[in-house]
């Protein structure tokens, strides 16, 4: 079956510390992968998407970066977190022919 794993569920990090959030999918190959951020009570803001290994497209200039070292692995990183990086981060995937996107359970990041 097709599943998506995202971890950790919650994370509290000090300003200036590095970040690494990982997302992996199972049961599909060559999916489109996405990182979104959601501010409290708001919609989703697309941060990065990837259509293949090593292919990353960035939607907004920011303090974050993404990598796709394997077909079913998508990583969101930062070298130095800012307070404004706090939010709810969601990983999602979509395969060709799928009706909609499948989301991970999200990571609540609080930068203190």
């Amino acid at each position, binding site marked *: 079956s097709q599943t998506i794993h995202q971890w950790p569920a919650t994370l509290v990090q000090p300003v200036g510390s590095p970040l690494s959030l990982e997302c992996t999918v199972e049961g599909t190959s060559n999916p489109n992968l996405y990182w979104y951020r959601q501010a409290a009570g*708001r919609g989703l*803001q697309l941060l990065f998407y990837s*259509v293949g290994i090593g292919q990353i497209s960035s939607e907004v200039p920011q303090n974050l970066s993404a990598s796709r070292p394997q077909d079913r692995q998508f990583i969101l990183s930062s070298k130095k977190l800012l307070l404004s990086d706090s939010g709810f981060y969601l990983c999602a995937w979509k395969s060709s022919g799928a009706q909609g996107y499948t989301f991970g359970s999200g990571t609540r990041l609080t930068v203190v």
Partner: protein
Amino acid sequence: SQQGEEDPQALSIQEGENATMNCSYKTSINNLQWYRQNSGRGLVHLILIRSNEREKHSGRLRVTLDTSKKSSSLLITASRAADTASYFCATDSSNYQLIWGAGTKLIIKP
């Protein structure tokens, strides 16, 4: 950028009543999708309606699409407490990304 705009921002109804949420968008689309998000969780895909479709049903859900008005509505019939969640519309205008609205927060009172 946010293309979809849901209306209302919040909706509170009694259990058993019907809930209607609306979504407006600005550009031409391939399809429009509705998602549900329980508090603090990921989003769950509910239904997709293509640009050449006008109405679609899935269980207690009914979605309509009016491309001339660039709007869609989601109707949940016979609401239940478990329907309490935020509902988002998202438009697909390309192969790679969706444009999301800010969502409607639905509260079902027992």
